[in-house]
C-alpha cells in the first residue's frame, strides 16, 4: 500500500451490539456527548447470542478490519444465558481465526451495560487504536 493511502486509512469496525445493554450503552455515550470511535458500524441484535459465527466471518470477508460483539454482563442477560453461548463461541472463533492466519485480536468481545456509556466510548477508541497498530486486513483468495 502506498504511503498516501496508509495515511488516509482508518479501520472499519463492525459492531454487533445487544439491544438490551450495549446498544443502549452506545446510545448513552452519544447522548452524554462522549467521544467514541467514528470507525464503528453498529448492527443491533436482540442478544449477543444471536450473533452467528457466520456473521463474523462474513464481516471480515466483506472488508471489516475488526469485529466487536457487545453484550450484557455475565448474569445480566435479558434471555438469562444467551451471553454464555456468545462467550464460548467467541473463544472458539478466536482459535479458528488464529488458524486462519487472522490475528484473533481483530475480534473483540465486551460486556457493556446500558449505564456504561463511558466504557463503550473508551472501548471503541481503544479497539480502533489497536486495529491501527495491526493495520488493514488484506485477505488473499
Amino acid at each position, binding site marked *: *500500500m502506498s504511503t498516501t493511502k*496508509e495515511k488516509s486509512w482508518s479501520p472499519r469496525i463492525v459492531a454487533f451490539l445487544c439491544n438490551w445493554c450495549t446498544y443502549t450503552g452506545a446510545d448513552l455515550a452519544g447522548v452524554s456527548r462522549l467521544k467514541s470511535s467514528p470507525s464503528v458500524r453498529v448492527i443491533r441484535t436482540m442478544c449477543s447470542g444471536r450473533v*452467528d*459465527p*457466520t456473521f*463474523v*466471518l*462474513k464481516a*471480515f*470477508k466483506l472488508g471489516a478490519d475488526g469485529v466487536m460483539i457487545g453484550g450484557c454482563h*455475565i448474569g445480566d442477560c435479558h434471555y438469562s444465558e444467551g451471553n*454464555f*453461548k*456468545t*462467550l*464460548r*463461541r*467467541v*473463544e*472458539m*472463533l478466536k*482459535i*479458528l481465526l488464529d*488458524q*486462519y*492466519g*487472522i*490475528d484473533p485480536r481483530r475480534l473483540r468481545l465486551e460486556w457493556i451495560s446500558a449505564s456504561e456509556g463511558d466504557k463503550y466510548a473508551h472501548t471503541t477508541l481503544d479497539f480502533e487504536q489497536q486495529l491501527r*497498530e*495491526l*493495520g*488493514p486486513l*488484506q*485477505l*488473499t*483468495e
Partner: protein
Amino acid sequence: MKPKLALYWASSCGGCEIAVVDIETKILDVADFFDIVFWPCIMDFKYKDVEAMPDGDITLCFFNGAIRTSENEHLAKLLRAKSKVMVAFGSCAHEGCIPGLANFYDKNSIFEFVYKNSPSVDEQSKGIYPVTVTKMPEGEIEIPEFWNTVKTLDQVVDVDYYIPGCPPQSFQIVNAVTAVIDILKNNKPLPPKGTVLGAGDKTCCDECPRERKEKKIKRFYRPQEIIPDPNECLLDQGIMCMGPATRSGCDALCVKANIGCRGCYGAPPNVTDQGAKMVSALSSVIDAQTPEEARKIMETLVDPLGTFYRFSMASSILKRVQPKTHLDSSGKPDFS
C-alpha cells in the same frame, strides 16, 4: 437418438467413479438409456473428442473433483460449454473436499514440502520443482499449471445441480439417475437450478438413531481414547461429530459405525459456512462458564479448523488460510 452422458474427474481420488460403478446392475440401465460420450476413467476418450463436439451436445455431465490445476479448469470450461446440464458430483466439485485442505498452504509451501523436504524425496531429486514448459530437443513439453488455491466447480463455471457426498452414496446416485431418466423420458420439467440432488434437506442428526440427552462435555476424546456407547449421542460423549452442521442424505452411515460424522455431505440448507455452524452447535455442548474454561476444552480438540472444514474449506466464506503477515524489522506489519 439417445441422450448423451459425460463423466469427468478433475482433482479427485477416483472414489466417485467407484461409487458410480457401485450402483451395480443399475449401471446397465444407465448404459442403455444414455450414450456415454466421455468417461476417461472407464473408457478410452480423448480431450479432442470433446473439443470436436458442438456446444450443448452433451445432455448431462457429472463432473467430480476440485479445480486444482489449469487442466482441471480447462476441462470444466470445455465441458460446461458442451453440456446442457452440469452437475457438480461429489464433495470435491461441490465444496472442495480433501483437496481443498491444500488451501491451508499455498503453491510454494506445497512444492517446498513435496519436492524438497518430504522424507520420501531422494537426495539427487531434492529441490527439483515441476515447470510448466520444458524445452527438449524434440520440442516443448507442457504440463498443467498448479494453482495457488483450490476452487470448487461453481467458482469456475456455472453449475446447475449438486450431488454431495464423499463419495455420494450409491443409493442416492440411483435416486438421482432414476429421477433424471424419468425427467428426460417423460419430458418433465427440470428441478430449479442450484438444487442439491441425492440428499436430504435436514441435518445428519435427523437420520441418526442415537439418543441425545442435553449433556455438557468437559473435554473431547480422540477415537482411540474412548470406547463409545453405541446408543448415546457421540457429541454427548465428547467425540467430535459434525452431524449438527452436515446435510442429511447418507443415512447416518458413520455414526451407525460408531464414528463421528466427518461432514462430507456439506453444509445443510440455508447454511453458508459449515465450520461456523459447527462453532455455533458446539457452543451449546461444551460446559464452560468462562473464556479460559472454553479454551481449555477446545484445546483437547486437535486441529479445529481442519476438523470443522474438512470437506468445505474451498467453499467456506474465507476460502483459505491467510499467508503469514509479513513483519518488518521493528516487528510491525509490512503493508507493501
